[in-house]
């Protein structure tokens, strides 16, 4: 028998329509169901009663007696029987996950590092959170010695973890390509000495990505994130050179040449992969056209993300943009299906959804690990929780040049404690185990606190998840048919 005593459905089951499907996502088990119209309305009715009268949670029999009056008795019995069976199997209305906060070793175990090898850039992107390169400081390149200190730090603080990750970031890291080359050689050698493997990624605007650089990255197995915003007019408006001239004409041939070398790049960013990554702003809330433009160019791995910007900026989102942005995600979902059916398949990073094969709950609670598993290093050797905090004195964790290079304990703890369960707004949100409470930097930028979420970010995240689950269902249906 279905037991809903004290069970808040809206908190634990997300019921929604996407395309022509009615979907139920069971938050605690991560299960996905497609419902017919009757069940959908039936559960909706129960949710509405619970919402209108929270006391009714204690008397679920009374709720079940009052809802479903429009159904024939037999139909209602069938629905109740199916719901009860799924509850018994813990696939729907499943018990709330035990509230176990993430636990960590006393000394932070650092497994990934963002290495700011160049606080300088050959572009002047208008939305750049690095202040077009220098992160509020001076335009500077990281020395080989500082880079080596960073790699030593990572190997020393990664404990038993066999895989360590280093991302070459900037500004534009290829402005310091010689140091990048030397650090890859150094990192691999030093990691091998201690029985570890060092995995490298590089985030570039592709301006300097010539054949020689591309071959080097290919040979060394470096994963690459390439920046492009989409259509020429969109890209060039926000990603010009210092002269004001747009970058599209130069970078697109280079990007296309590079990705040809990696036809089997993982959509889940595993192994040696590439992703072409763009940013959308208030100016292109129809960004699905930019994603499709890239897909039409032959780019198979696309990520386009919302800008994070102070409200005063012209390119920052306004409240009225939300409807258009959500519509863009809806259209993009349908277009992905259309392209797939025509044999022109591509993946959109934020529509990837790990469900039965996704991360465990502890990982979902703790999120990106900024400040205790993941750190960023400035060209001068200063340590910050992540690339977005670089240059913010309040968030400086330490320095590679300090004796022992210990991280500031209270700051480490502050980031460790900023997990999903610490965020009030997340406690009853259906997306709580899929977004980890959002990006720390975006939350701080909006609310000045790590544990207060960025509401627009939440709305966008939830929309992306809805489409992602829809596409997952469509993909599985297609596989079953084949």
């Amino acid at each position: 028998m279905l037991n809903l005593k004290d069970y808040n459905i809206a908190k634990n089951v997300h019921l929604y329509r996407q395309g022509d499907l009615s979907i139920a996502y069971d938050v605690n088990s991560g299960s996905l169901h497609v419902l017919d119209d009757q069940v959908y309305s039936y559960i909706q009715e129960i949710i509405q009663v619970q919402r209108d009268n929270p006391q009714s949670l204690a008397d679920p029999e009374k709720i079940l007696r009052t809802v479903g009056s429009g159904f024939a008795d037999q139909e209602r019995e069938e629905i109740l029987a199916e719901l009860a069976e799924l509850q018994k199997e813990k696939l729907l209305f499943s018990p709330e996950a035990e509230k176990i906060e993430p636990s960590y070793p006393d000394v932070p175990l650092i497994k990934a590092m963002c290495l700011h090898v160049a606080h300088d850039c050959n572009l002047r992107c208008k939305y750049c959170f690095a202040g077009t390169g220098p992160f509020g400081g001076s335009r500077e390149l990281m020395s080989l010695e500082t880079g080596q200190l960073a790699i030593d730090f990572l190997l020393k603080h990664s404990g038993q973890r066999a895989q360590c990750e280093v991302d070459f970031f900037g500004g534009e890291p290829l402005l310091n390509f010689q140091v990048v080359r030397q650090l890859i050689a150094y990192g691999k050698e030093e990691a091998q000495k201690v029985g570890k493997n060092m995995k490298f990624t590089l985030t570039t605007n592709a301006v300097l990505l010539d054949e020689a650089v591309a071959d080097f990255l290919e040979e060394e197995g470096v994963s690459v994130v390439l920046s492009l915003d989409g259509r020429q007019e969109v890209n060039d408006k926000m990603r010009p050179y210092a002269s004001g001239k747009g970058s599209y004409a130069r970078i697109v041939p280079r990007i296309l040449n590079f990705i040809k070398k990696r036809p089997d790049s993982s959509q889940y960013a595993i192994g040696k992969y590439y992703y072409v990554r763009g940013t959308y702003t208030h100016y292109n809330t129809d960004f699905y056209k930019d994603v499709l433009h890239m897909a039409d160019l032959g780019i198979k791995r696309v990520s386009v993300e919302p800008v994070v910007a102070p409200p005063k900026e012209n390119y920052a989102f306004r409240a009225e943009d939300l409807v258009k942005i959500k519509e863009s995600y809806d259209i993009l979902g349908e277009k992905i299906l259309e392209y797939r059916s025509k044999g022109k398949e591509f993946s959109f990073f934020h529509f990837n959804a790990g469900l039965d094969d996704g991360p465990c709950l502890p990982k979902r609670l703790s999120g990106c690990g900024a400040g205790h598993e993941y750190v960023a290093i400035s060209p001068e050797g200063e340590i910050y929780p992540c690339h977005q905090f670089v240059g913010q004195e309040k968030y400086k964790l330490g320095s590679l040049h300090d004796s022992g290079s210990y991280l500031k304990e209270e700051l480490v703890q502050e980031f460790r404690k900023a997990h999903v369960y610490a965020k009030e707004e997340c406690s009853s949100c259906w997306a709580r185990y899929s977004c980890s409470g959002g990006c720390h930097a975006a939350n701080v930028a909006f609310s000045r606190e790590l544990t207060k979420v960025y509401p627009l970010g939440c709305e966008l995240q939830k929309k992306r998840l809805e489409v992602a689950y829809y596409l997952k269902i469509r993909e599985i249906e297609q596989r079953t048919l084949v």
Partner: protein
Amino acid sequence: MAKHIQTVIKGNLSLTAKTGGCGQCQTSCQSACKTSCTVGNQVCEK
């Protein structure tokens, strides 16, 4: 066979509260995403 509900994915997420946490997975922001945490996009590497 169920008439009204089709279960497409059977998950057991809440059980991993005790069995998970090995920490061998990739850092989530270290991939294609540099501005928003996307842990739900990842796959378990265990």
